[in-house]
């Protein structure tokens, strides 16, 4: 048996797969009539989503088909602590929950880009809105579409051997496009809920079978020591980096900078993309915040541990995955371990533990993860193109399309088809699956702080956002394209990627701060209307003085942010430590999480009192 051995699906597993596709499509299509009534239904479910549906939909979208493979691969190559590459985004996620989710719902926008019209004015605002509609709707989302499709192509080759990957994926995309175009956001959310439960269930049961195969959790910990040695065992199991090296320095920079600076899809500073779309679709402000909090908890606490456990069990059951990950390419070739690299191969390798039926469910959960990301990407892209490009253009021309809601939905469905075609083209163009993410993250690094500050400082204007994006792009060109990141890394002794990130952020920040201070602020009437509608806390100086509206308490919201961050980190590390039988650390983390939860409850009570007194 080797690293490329494929697991064969039985006839019953194939039947489950087909049954899953039929059920998903049927559920999605049920909502087609409702979605066709108007754009509010098509893009925002008529603003009727309860917290559990919107939060589940966000978390289902956030993990793509290859996410379990990547997380298990992180564990094999760098230990559990390597997950700080994405854990650092938790700080921004809880900030969005407690500072911005209520504000987004109050703004009552259809897309995050529409906020530009409420918050800024003038020609710069109109240009910014149109640019972002094209940039996010066509460029960014096509890259996301292409990225997840390329990743799925690799998974089809491993999980479904014998199928032509191109034909299989083409058929899957056609089916997904069919029900997404017709069913609108309710169809997307409903299928997301089904797909999320399947994906989590499949991962948990695979982890349980893997632990059983190893001989239990105690045996897992012991056998990791036998494979990796005492130091290797500590490195594999530690939830924080165990030594000061380039990786640890990189993690520190990520924790200090990444989450507020980088516009990472699904973790946008201040909220963005499909997170904002779901919050805008919530029943009310409380559902928006609760749903977003459920997303954060499910995403960071519940979701990763089954994948981590499977990765650890793979090290024990097939140590050659671990050995291959410790060597460079030449070393792997010399040791005959090339088939066991990259470590992402380990997760599907573990499917051999799955019995008939469950194997079909787990294989279907990969389709589910892929489809949930694609459906949201298509619906979201169409919302940008229709709400922020087509409708403003039609309004300026005095078009009759503004009165014909069914015509608007037809345009939206056409936009879904357009984006899917563009995404398919991009997926063929992308040389490697990583190119798209790296491009988006680097190109937008540094623009995140403006997106946060626009809610809390009256002086931020459309010019600030434009300068931040231009500053990022120019800095990106010099730092990444001209290779100054390597020079800076050598000069500072830090890791190239993260030092380069710092340089881009610095360049962008200088650009928008100067541009903000030397240009005129947004006009009073626009700022007053925005303040009255959204009631944001923070530094609103003359705007707050002119208004009779009582704003949110920024101090209380920041305390909620701290409490919730401690709560989620405590639960994440507590659950993991208990699973890995580090009882003392686990209980301590859970105690900290409970304490933070009590603090949060007090803050909720204070908020209710303030609302009652308003």
């Amino acid at each position, binding site marked *: 048996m080797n690293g490329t051995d494929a697991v064969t699906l039985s006839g019953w597993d194939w039947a*489950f797969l087909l049954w899953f596709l039929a059920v998903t499509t049927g559920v999605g299509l049920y909502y087609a009539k409702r979605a066709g*009534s108007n754009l509010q239904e098509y893009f925002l479910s008529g603003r009727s989503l309860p917290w559990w549906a919107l939060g589940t939909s966000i978390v289902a979208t956030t993990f793509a088909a290859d996410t379990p493979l990547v997380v298990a691969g992180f564990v094999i190559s760098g230990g559990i602590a390597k997950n700080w590459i994405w854990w650092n985004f938790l700080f921004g996620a809880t900030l969005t929950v407690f500072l911005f989710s209520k504000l987004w719902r109050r703004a009552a926008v259809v897309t995050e880009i529409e906020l530009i019209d409420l918050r800024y004015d003038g020609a710069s605002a109109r240009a910014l809105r149109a640019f972002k509609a094209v940039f996010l709707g066509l460029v960014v989302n096509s890259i996301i579409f292409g990225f997840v499709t390329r990743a799925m192509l690799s998974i089809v080759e491993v999980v479904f051997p014998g199928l032509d990957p191109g034909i299989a994926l083409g058929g899957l995309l056609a089916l997904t496009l069919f029900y997404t175009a017709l069913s609108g956001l309710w169809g997307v959310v409903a*299928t997301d809920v089904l797909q999320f439960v399947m994906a989590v269930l499949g991962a948990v*049961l695979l982890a349980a*079978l893997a632990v059983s195969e190893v001989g239990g959790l105690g045996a897992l910990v012991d056998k990791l020591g036998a494979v990796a040695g005492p130091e290797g065992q500590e490195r594999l199991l530690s939830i924080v980096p165990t030594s000061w090296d380039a990786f640890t320095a990189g993690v520190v920079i990520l924790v200090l900078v990444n989450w507020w600076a980088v516009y990472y899809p699904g973790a946008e500073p201040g909220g963005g993309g499909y997170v904002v779309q779901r919050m805008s679709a919530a029943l009310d402000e409380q559902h928006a915040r609760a749903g977003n909090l459920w997303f954060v908890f499910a995403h960071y606490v519940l979701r990763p541990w089954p994948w981590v456990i499977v990765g650890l069990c793979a090290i024990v059951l097939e140590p050659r995955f671990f050995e291959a990950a410790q060597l460079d390419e030449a070393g792997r070739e010399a040791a005959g371990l090339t088939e066991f690299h990259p470590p992402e191969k380990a997760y599907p390798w573990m499917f051999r533990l799955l*019995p008939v*039926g469950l194997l079909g469910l787990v294989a279907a959960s990969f389709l589910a993860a892929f489809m949930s990301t694609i459906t949201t990407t298509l619906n979201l892209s169409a919302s940008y193109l229709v709400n922020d490009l087509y409708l403003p253009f039609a309004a300026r021309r005095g078009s009759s399309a503004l009165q014909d809601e069914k015509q608007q939905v037809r345009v939206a469905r056409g936009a879904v088809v357009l984006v899917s075609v563009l995404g398919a083209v991009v997926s063929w163009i992308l040389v490697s699956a990583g190119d798209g993410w790296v491009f988006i993250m680097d190109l937008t690094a540094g623009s995140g702080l403006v997106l946060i500050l626009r809610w809390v400082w009256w002086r931020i204007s459309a010019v600030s956002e434009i300068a931040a994006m231009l500053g990022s792009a120019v800095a990106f060109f010099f730092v990444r394209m001209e290779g100054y990141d390597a020079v800076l890394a050598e000069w500072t002794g830090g890791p190239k990627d993260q030092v380069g990130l710092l340089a881009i952020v610095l360049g962008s920040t200088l650009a928008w701060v100067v541009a903000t201070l030397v240009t005129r602020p947004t006009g009073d009437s626009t700022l007053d209307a925005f303040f009255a509608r959204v009631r944001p806390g923070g530094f609103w100086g003359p705007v707050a003085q002119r208004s009779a509206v009582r704003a949110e308490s920024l101090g209380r919201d920041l305390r909620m942010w701290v409490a919730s961050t401690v709560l989620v980190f405590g639960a994440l590390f507590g659950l993991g430590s208990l699973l890995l039988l580090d009882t003392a650390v686990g209980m301590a983390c859970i105690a900290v999480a409970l304490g933070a939860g009590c603090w949060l409850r007090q803050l909720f009570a204070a908020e209710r009192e303030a609302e009652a007194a308003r």
Partner: protein
Amino acid sequence: MQAHPSPYLPIAVGFYLLAVPLVIAIFLADSAAGGWTNGIAAAVMLVCGRLLQGGRR
């Protein structure tokens, strides 16, 4: 505003339908693990379906 039937019902039906092949797989399983894992998966699907079936808006 136009009234709609509960939007949760199709999701509940979806869970019930997905449970069907898992229940059958319990009897097809050729190992003990096949029995209990498919049983748990089917039970979770049925519970989710039941919870959503009772959902109102």
